[in-house]
């Protein structure tokens, strides 16, 4: 099997995540789609690490995981605050700001 198949997989997952952010309305689901994109990037990093024969890509993945964990904390805190204020986690309901 060709190693580059992992890169195809990564690109597919990234694309699906990117579409999800655009089409889904629930903030939590949107955020999960972002997580999917980050995971896809990680897969690419790990695969390139293997192709290049050094560990820098794996380190990058590791950092991404740490950063993503922090991001999730902050993001979910914001979403919960929003939810408590207006009982909805839909991005559409968050449209007081003029378009």
């Amino acid at each position, binding site marked *: 099997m060709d190693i580059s198949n992992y890169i195809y997989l990564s690109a597919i997952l990234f694309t699906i995540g990117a579409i999800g952010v655009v089409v889904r309305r629930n903030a939590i689901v949107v955020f*999960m789609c972002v997580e999917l994109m980050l995971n896809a990037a990680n897969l690419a990093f790990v695969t390139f690490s293997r192709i290049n024969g050094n560990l820098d890509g794996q380190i990058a993945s590791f950092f991404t995981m740490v950063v993503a964990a922090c991001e999730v904390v902050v993001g979910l805190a914001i979403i919960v605050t929003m939810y408590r204020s207006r009982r909805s986690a839909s991005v559409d309901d968050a449209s007081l700001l003029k378009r």
Partner: protein
Amino acid sequence: MFKMALQVGSTHTPEAVLFWIMAPMAVLAALGMLLVKKAVHSALLLAWVMITLAIFYIAEDALFLGIVQVVVYTGAVMMLFLFILMLVGVDSSDSLVENIKGQRPAAILAAIGFGGLLLSLIGRAVSHTAAVGLTATNADGNVQGIAQQLFTRYVWAFEVVSALLITAALGAMVLAHSERKHISQRQLSVDRFRQASLADTAGLPASGVYARHNAVDVPALLPDGSAAPTSISSTLEARGDIIASEPFELTANEEEEN
């Protein structure tokens, strides 16, 4: 589409089998994430994708990352997502109605174009790719290798990440922590028993009951003491099973006596 010619970039059969079983499932799960209505289902599907990736990491000589992926990502991050979904309401689901007409088909079309372009570009690129592999690099062990890099080459970034962790904790505090000033139920009941008189410790009597008879064929009384005929079921009325209401009416002098 898949070039098998590159010997250096190819791997042995077990990994191929693993890939061809797991990868399509991961893609399906990711697609499902987009299509299912309930957020919880999306979260579970995402967790599945993450576990798949963890397996792939291990297959790709990234043992440490594979474990971290399961522990941190699937274990902690996804659990956090699920917690929040529980908090917000498990039923929370998307209305799949479009807000802007034509937005969704347009987005899907654009995405297919985007993905297709991406894939075809990668397809052209990988024919030149030759993989070095990590066997040499991981000779001392994957974890050791990563530690070596992490604490030398990337030590500065590692230090700075601590700022991020503190920020996250602080942020969650700011948005969620509130100083308790509600009095708890327990405190309320203690207060009740500590007051001077125990007269209404068990609670105050229920308010305004005007009936003087508890049979269904006796009319209720209105606040002014007169009977309320409509309080009797119309079936009883049709059968004539009604007791005259006059004896039960509250008269003026009776009221004075009370």
